[in-house]
């Protein structure tokens, strides 16, 4: 960092040559070259599964490469473990934070390091240093707060401070912006630029073109485990990058004007839902989704979206309020009843809640309709042939790429699993279609396809409600955007006439001019619900 000028004047900080890493059945990295110079931000760009994380896990000692060499500051090194990587000055901010929620910020920052007081903790000294770093890099965080009390954005700051505290010269950030509001992204980028200006080398893993071009000096594009190109960020356009990422030309997503919305099919009134810790996660939400509409709920994760979604789907009984699908009250009813009333649901964690990984494609496709008389010989006995026939139709209709109908679902890619879940849910012809994180972690082509299906479904008169942390997705797919903040719908916007920034401010809890506040009867009901809660 600032105190190591010899690094700043030397050649590449990091040089990885011919890295090959094979996992059972996958060539995750195929002869990849990658280098980082002091003072630069080098983006590692590519789709999910392109091999970005694997390459960085090799660098961080989590995986050992099958072939290839790594040199740090010109010296060849072997990195057998994360501990060794840390000792060599490599820091990593993982996508899933490596923090201990029950410990304080200072304890997390100093975890595993020697204390100046021998076996006793020296937290006051650590806290002082954390405050210094936090001050000089603009990473606001309180050293004695427990990590579980922090927002996602704050936790990320703790991770970066942890790396700074350990005097990392090379910092890898794995998809750091996925969980941040646009405002928080700006703050993060400012801190990263400052680190780079002090001679630190930064690796920025991302699949967001806007951010890659906005932050980095150079970009290395990976596709299917191979390095496609390394380019100067200033000399390449977003379209070119996107083409390099997917390997062919892609058209802009088509924004069809939506039909005039019909009557309300889903109405949620004054909903109060408790979270896992027993506190109110949803604090009086009222909303309506009309036939033909796609309503998008934007917000930083942890603002009550998951609890709202689970309450609507019948997976979490609400403390108060009502959920009506075509006028039928469903609040507190079990998920089976909700499903029979006409709700289709794609959950956020598709592997844990959306499919049974060990079951075959055909079995997963019939999970929701195992009582459908068309599939039964007599009650309780499946007609295998009918199950397969139904599966074959759905696989074809929804373009699920699978080796066979008997393939266990866990062997499919994320995009194909998501298409399978969407197929299963739409096969039941829902009146209301609730989709959480429609395209998180799936490839562009599959994401595009799912967006098209959502639009087609709305055009058929289904009320579609999506919950997404990806603001770009919410803005492109929805006909109306609601922003959730601290358990409430803080604002509403028309995505065609609102800027990202305005919605970003709402995501941070600020109701901006230009965005309409939540309107109509919903708002009054929400106020009434608040009054009851208080």
């Amino acid at each position, binding site marked *: 960092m600032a105190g190591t000028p010899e690094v700043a004047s030397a050649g590449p900080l990091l040089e990885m040559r011919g890295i090959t890493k094979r996992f059972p059945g996958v060539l995750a990295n195929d002869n990849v070259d990658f280098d980082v110079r002091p003072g630069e931000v080098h983006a590692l760009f590519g789709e999910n599964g392109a091999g970005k994380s694997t390459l960085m896990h090799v660098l961080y000692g989590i995986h050992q490469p099958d072939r290839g060499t790594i040199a740090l500051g010109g010296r060849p090194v072997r990195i057998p473990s994360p501990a060794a990587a840390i000792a060599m000055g490599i820091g990593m901010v993982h996508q899933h934070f490596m923090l201990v929620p029950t410990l304080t910020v200072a304890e997390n920052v100093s*975890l595993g390091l020697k204390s100046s007081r021998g076996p*006793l903790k020296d937290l006051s000294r650590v806290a002082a240093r954390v405050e210094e770093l936090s001050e000089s890099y603009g990473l606001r965080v309180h050293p004695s707060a427990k990590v579980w009390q922090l927002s996602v954005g704050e936790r990320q700051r703790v991770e970066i401070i942890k790396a700074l505290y350990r005097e990392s010269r090379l910092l890898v950030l794995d998809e750091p912006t996925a969980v941040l509001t646009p405002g928080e992204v700006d703050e993060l980028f400012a801190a990263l630029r400052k680190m780079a200006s002090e001679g630190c080398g930064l690796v920025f893993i991302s699949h967001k073109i806007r951010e890659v071009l906005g932050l980095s000096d150079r970009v290395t594009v990976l596709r299917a485990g191979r390095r496609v190109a390394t380019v100067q960020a200033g000399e390449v356009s977003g379209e070119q990058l996107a083409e390099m990422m997917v390997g062919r030309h892609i058209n802009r997503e088509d924004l069809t004007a939506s039909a005039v919305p019909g009557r309300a099919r889903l109405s949620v009134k004054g909903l109060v839902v408790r979270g896992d810790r027993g506190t109110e996660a949803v604090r009086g939400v009222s909303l309506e989704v009309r036939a033909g509409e796609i309503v998008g709920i934007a917000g930083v994760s942890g603002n009550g979206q998951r609890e709202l979604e689970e309450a609507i789907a019948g997976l979490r009984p609400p403390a108060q309020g009502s959920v009506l699908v075509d006028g039928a009250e469903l609040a507190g009813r079990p998920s089976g009843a909700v499903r029979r009333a006409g709700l289709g649901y794609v959950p956020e964690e598709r592997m844990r809640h959306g499919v049974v990984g060990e079951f075959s494609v055909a079995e997963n496709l019939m999970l929701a309709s195992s009582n459908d008389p068309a599939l039964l010989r007599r009650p309780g006995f499946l007609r295998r042939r009918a199950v397969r026939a139904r599966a074959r139709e759905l696989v074809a209709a929804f373009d699920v790429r699978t080796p066979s109908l008997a393939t266990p679902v866990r062997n499919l890619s994320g995009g194909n699993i998501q298409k399978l879940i969407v197929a299963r849910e739409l096969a039941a012809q829902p009146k209301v279609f609730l989709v959480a994180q429609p395209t998180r972690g799936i490839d562009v082509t599959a994401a595009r396809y799912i967006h098209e299906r959502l639009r087609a479904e709305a055009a058929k008169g289904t009320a579609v409600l999506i919950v997404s942390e990806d603001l770009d997705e919410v803005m492109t797919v929805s006909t109306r955007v609601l922003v959730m903040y601290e358990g409430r719908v803080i604002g509403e916007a028309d995505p065609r006439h609102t800027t990202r920034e305005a919605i970003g401010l709402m995501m941070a809890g600020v109701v901006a001019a230009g965005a309409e506040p939540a309107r109509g009867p919903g708002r009054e009901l929400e106020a009434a619900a608040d009054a009851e809660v208080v």
Partner: protein
Amino acid sequence: MSQFFTYAVITATIASAVQYAAPFLLAALGETVGQRSGVLNLGVDGIMLLSAFSCYFVALRTGSDLLGVVVGMLTGAVLGLLTAFMSVTLRAQQGISGIGVYILGLGLSDLLFVRFVGTPLPVSSLPNVSVPGLSRLPALGPMFFQQNWLVYIAFLLVPAVAFFLYRTTYGTRVLAVGENPAAADSVGISVTRTRYATVVFGCTMAGLAGSTLLLLDGIFQENLTQSAGFIAVALVYFGAWRPFGVMTGSLLYGVVTAVVLQWKSLGIIPTSAADLAATAPAVITVLALVVLAGRFKQPSSLGKAYVRGA
């Protein structure tokens, strides 16, 4: 009933409650440290049995309580290595491998007793040691400060374990491994070494608990512990993985046990109900567990083997 509420009877009851609590406390403190690092050890009772036997055997042959206790603890440590090898290195299902250790301890302790001792001879029982000054306090003295040395050790270990967990860097590492082993691993803390250390410590404590139980009884018999090790595991949950909470639970258990015994000897509980009354401590502990269950969060990785990158 009135004959119970006399100064002498109440102080004697409390004093024996404290003594009954000691072996549970020792085993539960050890288990607390292991569970805080993420390892569930259900073999405590078996380890206590085998340690009780080895303590008995050595004390009987050498006449030295202290030597017996040391060998009892060593026995615990060796079984701790076995437990850690299964839970950490082999990543066995911890609930099942623990029951295996229990059955091993239950069977082997009796087998060794029959094979090498046969006739039950008593060893000298533990003398009480009066703490200078404190033991002369009215009421408190006879209740708490005229106990045997193993009882003092058990209660002194409560603040010691709390200090270790909350004030030292090693304690923080243990907590980190138990809550998020991947995070600990990512900063260079060896999850394997940490868990081996806590499990061996926990099992050594179980060995000390078994030795204590043996020396309090003065004689070995089959299934001497009568599932005390399982109660100790329950007390860890009762105490919400906190040393002082575990101590509270152990004392509650000791008080109920002592009161039931006292009432029986005073005839307050009729002989016909004696067997039923003997279940009271376990029943009350279970009821307390039911009431308290879910109030506190267990260590997030409890019972889960750690695999890097998975």
